[in-house]
């Protein structure tokens, strides 16, 4: 017996588009549609939402009929590790400053791969931080906090 969903990639893409369409339509319902020649802020998003829903629905329905590729297995380690790193940087950049925040972020980041050498990762993160400090802060003068703010 054939599986019900024959094109998993299409199916889940369709579901994703439908989800975004629903979010768009719900959010846009809070904005005025406008009247006459004065198109309101809700008009264009609502139109987009329905079009997106239509395409999502086509993908979902079609995935029952046409055979397509399966989704490759998801490895959670790199995904969660890198998302964690980015969020860690977001949380720490202002209180801890660039030096501490970036060193830890890039050090942790190295553990997302299969192949980690602790000494190398440490050297890399320190080197990157020094490089960033010189280029972004000293040479370009970008407004980055450098040290922890007390």
């Amino acid at each position: 017996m054939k599986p019900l969903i024959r094109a998993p990639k299409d199916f889940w893409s369709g579901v994703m588009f439908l989800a975004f369409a629903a979010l768009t339509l719900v959010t846009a319902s809070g904005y005025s549609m406008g009247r006459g020649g004065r198109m309101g802020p809700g008009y264009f998003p609502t139109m987009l939402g329905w079009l997106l829903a239509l395409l999502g629905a086509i993908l979902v329905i079609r995935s029952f009929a046409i055979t397509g590729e399966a989704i490759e297995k998801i490895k959670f380690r790199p995904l969660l590790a890198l998302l964690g790193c980015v969020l860690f940087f977001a949380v720490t950049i202002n209180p801890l400053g660039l030096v501490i925040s970036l060193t830890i972020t890039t050090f942790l980041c190295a553990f997302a791969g299969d192949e980690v050498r602790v000494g190398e990762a440490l050297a890399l993160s320190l080197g990157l931080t020094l490089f960033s400090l010189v280029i972004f802060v000293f040479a370009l003068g970008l407004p980055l906090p450098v040290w922890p703010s007390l």
Partner: protein
Amino acid sequence: MMDVFSNIWLGLTVAVTLKNLAYCLIGSFLGTVVGVLPGIGPVTTVAMLMPISFTLEPTSALIMLAGIYYGAQYGGSTTAILINIPGEASSVVTSLDGHQMARQGRAGPALGIAALGSFFAGTVATFVIAFGAPPLAKLALQFGPAEYFSLMLCGLVAAVVLARGSIIKAIAMVLLGLVFGLSGSDVNSGVRRFTYGFQGLADGIEFVALSMAIYGVAEVIVNLEKKVDENASTAPVGSVWPSWADIRYCIPTVLRGTALGSVLGVLPGGGALLASFSAYTLEKKVAKAPRNFGHGDIRGVAAPESANNAGAQTSFIPMLTLGIPSNPTMALMIGALMVHGITPGPRVMTDRPELFWGIVASMWIGNLLLVVLNLPMVGIWVRLLRTPYRLMFPAIVGFCCIGAYTVNANVTDIVVMAFITLFGYICLKLDCEPAPLILGFVLGPLMEENLRRGLLISRGDPMIFLNTPISLGFLIAAALLLLVVAAPAIRRKREEALVE
């Protein structure tokens, strides 16, 4: 005719003084650097150098600022090719084939053809400005809200062609890009839409955060899922230079790209961006063996790079001749001119010929300097690619974080980057290509703005979009393009159905 040559000669005498050459070099060098670095673009750099430019002669100041602008376009494509991070919207297209080439060990030829294509386009564009500035300036004035809306629509349809896979998914991604672009304050009503109460989203999703999330972090995650030896680091490093065969292969592409870029660059708004991807689209439809596009075809680098550079250069036309800024960098340059008591407009050409022609000539020299500066760098860049991936990826993620933060000095942008990374990862897993999304994101707000402005002016009458020949022409072109795109897919589907 003779006038033009005597004008160019006048320009050269201005631009080739030692002082102006130095400013040209500094500008294009700085531009390349900020183009390569994430999170700092030409706008920020020009703004930072403004106070210094006040103390210079206006011609020297403009020569330097212009150098930053086109130098940055150039540097942006370097990172797009090497590590798949397009710093500017217009480099998104370059990364499609450019990065594939890098992974196949052909980063050298990709960078080389980008430099040569850009230089050729720059040379031609210089002459386009010299001969065609006044008529092209008139073209830009013909564009009202209706024409812009139709042009954007046409551009979005062209974006679908960028995709390698499913057309339905590509159209859906364009629509999703339009939705992402809705976030922020609505120009027509002032209402903050899709910000969900976050102050940091009041100006919308930051482009740098979006493109770094999808092309930087999400791409790294997908790469890390693969076995180590599949990553770029182990690909054999082939020749550093493009071969004669490569160059000959690209000549028609570069010519078409340059022509398209020169015209589209004149249009204020999305001009230079539209140029790079419509050139790619055109090649994909016109050139032989279109199947190679997206898999590391060298023409896929040559087309957007030449168009983009031609467009960057001709975008000076509306600024210098009409006083209309075609992008934020140009707005800054108008500011710089006004500080020197020069008001940009049609009279600049006649009142200050040495300024106008000096800048035009300096652009050509600047492009030459860029080639001279960058071709020797290609070898270094390519060697950099041999760095093991386990050392590369923390650096990429680190730079993405810094880049996302420094654009607006805003933590929200980093958080947004994290969310879009997750979304980008899902898209990559599901074979939903991000390029159409990015173009929808950039063009969408302009499209809605002009649609609503057009309808406001016509008091709600949609005929405004059909009444002018330019707007009607774009709408017809969009419809035809959609047919061309959809036709092979429909045919294929029918054949599949018949086989079953």
